[in-house]
């Protein structure tokens, strides 16, 4: 039987949707995998990666399908990534309260061109990447800082609750 991780349970405790929790390390690994195989990366450019909706969530909402496009509920995690970036870049992010309310799309909020990312981070600049891959790159580059801020932020919210 599949067990929830500590972080997922923590999300539960602070009344956040645990489904929004995603493994940053897994994203990093996938990013590396895509860098190794240009054709696979190109296919993903046409059909962007999709974050899964856990089966249990789908069973409750609808029996129609197990797989869904990236859910907008993944805002809480993306907020901390954006916050971590703001100090080092001039990227504008939308109002945090709006994101929590689910009004804004977390990915579009961070403006960065795929081309810029490709030039900066890939050893093979000819590869173009989509916005999703840009997001993964940001996660990769800021992983340590973002991860620590995320946990800190969670504990702050836990205290408040």
């Amino acid at each position: 039987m599949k067990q929830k991780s500590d972080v997922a349970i923590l999300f539960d405790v602070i009344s956040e949707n645990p489904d929004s929790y995603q493994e940053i390390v897994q994203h990093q690994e996938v990013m590396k995998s895509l860098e190794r195989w240009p054709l696979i990366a190109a296919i993903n450019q046409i059909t962007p990666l999709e974050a899964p909706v856990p089966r249990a969530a789908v069973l409750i909402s609808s029996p129609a399908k197990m797989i869904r496009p990236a859910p907008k509920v993944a805002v809480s995690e993306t907020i901390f990534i954006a916050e971590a970036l703001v100090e080092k870049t001039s990227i504008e992010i939308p109002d945090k309260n709006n994101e929590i309310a689910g009004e804004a799309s977390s990915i579009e909020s961070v403006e960065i061109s795929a081309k810029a990312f490709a030039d900066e981070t890939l050893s093979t600049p000819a590869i173009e990447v989509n916005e999703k891959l840009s997001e993964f790159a940001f996660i990769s580059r800021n992983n340590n800082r973002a991860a620590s801020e995320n946990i800190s932020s969670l504990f702050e919210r836990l205290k408040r609750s």
Partner: protein
Amino acid sequence: MKIISVVSGKGGVGKTTISANLCAALRNKGHEVLALDFDPQNSLRFHFGINPSDEGGIVSSGFQSSRWKESIIKSNDGCLVLPFGKITESERSNFEQAIATQANLLKEQLHSLGLSPEAYVVIDTSGQLPFLKQALSAANLTIVVNIADAASYTTIPMINGAIGQYCEGRSDYVGSLYILNQIDRSRQLNEDIADIVSMQVGAENIALVHQDQSIQEALACRTNILAYDPNCRATQDFSDAASKITEVMSSIYQASAKRNSF
């Protein structure tokens, strides 16, 4: 009746082998299973030890449900098998015309067989479009079979598009399970594609079948992998995949039964 359509966007990925051994794994867990060969290659029967000289099947039976029932063969492992049947070119042409013009022909035929609500029907589906349409239109669950290589990976968007068109939105459709076949963990590409697909579709919606010579040997011995080598890696893989299938299908079935009880 729970209808599982085994599909892929590319030939040669082991669809028939996956179909047959999943049937065996589901049967091994105590379920009633009907294996339906919906592919003119007519090769599913070989995995069940059916005599090669037995050439009956769904096409030669026409579209009368009583004749489909007569064509069902019980295999040694207890699965019910409905072969495609050996056919002439003109029979094949007539059959393809019929399935191209009658949208839910396969679904209607299956429901007329009178199987129990708990029974699993596993359809080994041809890659030809009329066959694919019929199988997807009937499916409660689709199993998308791929090899972890680039050629196979490039077909995933296409097959997902077909699933989107013919399955999603139907209230009786559960979703897709992705099986990566012939996985060799020593190969970086295999490992990477497994990671990528796992993240794309969710770890709970993917099953791996590792490369295992026992699978080919089982077929050569006219049996399935579970009977041939109960302790090999592939047997464990098929058993795990069958568990995923039964878990999700029983959840849906119970949810549906609850809804109907109100």
